[in-house]
């Protein structure tokens, strides 16, 4: 990736993270950790030009689909949609408030650009399988990106979907596992160990690509390869840091579902913008 593109993506990712902080501080409840861990990947998906999307035409026929199966991380999705121009910036102040389009978990009937309502974990990949089957019947070139959590991967339904996607050789599904090592009650390895996770996906018939979730070269390379591979589903295992970009939130279980107060928000934002200047 050339340095200009990388700089642009870094800037976008920082802006998304700043919006996440603003949004959550204003709301007073919500989920920072799992939003920040996937922010670089969202910046890449929406701003690299890699996906076929049109903010002016959110239901465009052959658009690529994005399903945030770990729906509690919706601040990252909402911020991205705001940055991309799908929805107006004033909405940022309304997150989780009565009457807002920005519900506590994503509602596809309310927010343009949201391809699926989520919130109850473990269902997004199955929905992706359905979309993939339907779009394939229509000979659509669209890809379906499904973002799942590592805690979420404990749901049996994830593995039912894994089987189905491989069984139907769905080359149009690209899974992204946000492997941040944490869930609510603690470290994933202590709560319900799912390792060796890459071997599990391979055993279920998926092509697996392992990357750092915070390295744009690796993200670009992985998504490029995943798109090329048409024989079956691909899982990108994105090794991430929960709370990435805000020092006091990084790898801290306590920041799964706690929001920053105004001082913490300001500290977070100055860190995020400071890192950008360096």
């Amino acid at each position, binding site marked *: 990736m050339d340095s200009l593109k990388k700089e642009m993506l870094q800037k976008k990712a920082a802006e998304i993270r700043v919006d996440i902080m603003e949004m959550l501080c204003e709301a007073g*409840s919500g989920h920072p950790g799992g939003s920040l861990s996937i922010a670089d990947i969202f910046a890449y998906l929406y701003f690299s030009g890699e996906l076929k999307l049109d903010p002016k035409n959110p239901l465009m026929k052959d658009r690529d689909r994005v399903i945030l199966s770990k729906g509690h991380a919706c601040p990252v999705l909402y911020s991205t949609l705001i940055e991309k121009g799908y929805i107006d910036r004033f909405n940022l102040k309304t997150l*989780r*408030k009565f009457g807002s389009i920005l519900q506590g*978990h994503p509602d596809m009937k309310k927010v343009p650009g949201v391809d699926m309502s989520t919130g*109850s974990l473990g269902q997004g990949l199955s929905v992706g399988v359905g979309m993939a089957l339907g779009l394939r019947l229509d000979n659509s070139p669209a890809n379906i990106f499904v973002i799942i959590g590592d805690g979420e991967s*404990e*749901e049996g339904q994830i593995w039912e979907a894994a089987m189905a996607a491989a069984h139907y050789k769905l080359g149009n599904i690209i899974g992204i596992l946000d492997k941040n090592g944490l869930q609510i009650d603690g470290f994933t390895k202590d709560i*319900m160990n*799912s390792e060796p996770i890459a071997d599990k996906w391979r055993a279920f018939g998926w092509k697996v690509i392992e990357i750092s979730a915070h390295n744009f070269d690796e993200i670009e390379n992985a998504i490029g390869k995943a798109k090329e591979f048409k024989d079956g589903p691909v899982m990108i295992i994105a090794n991430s840091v929960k709370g990435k970009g805000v020092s006091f939130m990084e790898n801290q279980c306590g920041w799964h579902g706690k929001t920053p107060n105004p001082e913490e928000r300001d500290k977070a934002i100055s860190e995020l913008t400071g890192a950008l200047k360096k």
Partner: protein
Amino acid sequence: MITDFAKKILSTEAKKVATRTAYGDTITALGETNKNIVALDCDLSKSTMTATFAKKFPDRFFNFGIAEADMMSAAAGLATTGKIPFASTFAVFATKRAADQISSSIAYPHLNVKICATHAGISVGEDGATHQAIEDVAIMRAIPGIVVLSPCDATETKKVIETVVEYNGPCYVRLTRTNIPVLFNDSYNFKIGKGIKIMEGTKATLISTGFMTHIAFEAAKKLEEQGIEVDFINMASIKPIDEELIIESAKKTKVVITVEDHNVIGGLGSAVCELLSEKLPTKVIRLGVQDKFGASGETYELINAYGFGEESIINTVKSVI
């Protein structure tokens, strides 16, 4: 007028506690002497408050990760070995994600599992529709053999948990997130199948359950100030329901209003209608969620906007008398 019976059991302290907190404290206290008690959770122990038990008895706590179906059937397995499993997660996931496991693994063999689900109703607030159980009572009530209980405060929760430990069979206990007033003192006794009359009147029968009782109580008191006295009943035992108490009251007042933080289809209101339509046809108005999904917002803001807050209760009573 507050009944003489209620006067003895009403608390005089002004304290607010969430029923989920009372739940965690009670299983932990009971766990000291009853070594068969085990607690199970699905990555929400700090919210369901089974974490209190886990801290004290780490060997008797099992976190199943985010795998509700697995947890429910495993609870059934534990029950076959003589353990008394308390299986907890949010009410949405317990009763919808794992409905078949509860039915087939727990209820059909009538195993001694206590499903104690928290964050029921739209009173959950900001998390929104996917996290607000408005159909859990309907689902649990429709499965044969499950006792369905919905305590209204910390004291009633404690008594309910003490009761279900002694009862042999599957129970569903509906708990809530938000801190609410402690209405009863410790002399209150809970019995499965029994409600309690808190106020006595002739104009209408007002029956509430769970989270809604503290709100309905305020409404009943305001109505009394305006000269409208109602029979006000708290019904924690939704299945079996207190038939005698409801029939006796409906005979006198001729009109019943039910209030619940649940869809009006399948919950307390439905249970009351089923009873009265067979045994004493009486007009019943069901206040609650009118068959639509919840939303994000603040607890009381939502309940008011959905039309079953204090003001709606008062207006409804006035409209029928």
